[in-house]
């Protein structure tokens, strides 16, 4: 049971690293915004897996805060991209 959860954690972290690779390889702001969205989704997933792994519900609080912050940051990036156009 714990082994399967460890494997799930490894899969999620691999996903976050792959998304970060896009942010490094393609340098435009839009690419980085998309990659950042994916990284935060993967990390939210990772916090949930950590909560299931350790039976601690404080990781769930972290996942909640991370989800709200990721929404705030992607809205901020979108507003910046629109304001830069003018």
């Amino acid at each position, binding site marked *: *049971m714990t082994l*399967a*959860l460890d*494997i*799930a*954690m490894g*899969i*999620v972290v*691999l*996903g*976050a690293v*792959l*998304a970060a*690779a*896009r942010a490094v390889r393609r340098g*435009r*702001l*839009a*690419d980085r*915004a*998309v*990659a950042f*969205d*994916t990284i935060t*989704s*993967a990390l*939210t*997933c990772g916090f*949930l*897996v950590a*909560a*299931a792994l350790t*039976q601690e*519900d404080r990781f*769930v*609080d972290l*996942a*909640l805060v991370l*989800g*709200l912050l*990721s*929404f705030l940051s*992607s*809205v901020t*990036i*979108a*507003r910046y*991209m*629109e304001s*830069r*156009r003018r």
Partner: protein
Amino acid sequence: MRAVLDVVSVVSIVAGATLVLLGAIGVLRFRDPLVAMHAATKPATLGVVLTGLGTALQFTGASSITKVVLVVLVQLATVPVGSHMLGRAMSRSRDDD
């Protein structure tokens, strides 16, 4: 009963993690940012929902389960809105970028 719930929970957590990995592979491979966003949002959201289901099955207390449900609801509400705003900004600034 507990063992059945554990198996269902672990299977759904692993499925959610695999979906997140598939979305990340799509983000890495697709060239156009709008297409990459299509790969980024849908599998990742479903992955978070599945992982949240599995995590909620692991807990017994009502407050922990409520928090997990809250995480899933926040993800379901904010990811489409945020990516819609990003996509609109991208398509409006596409020609000069």
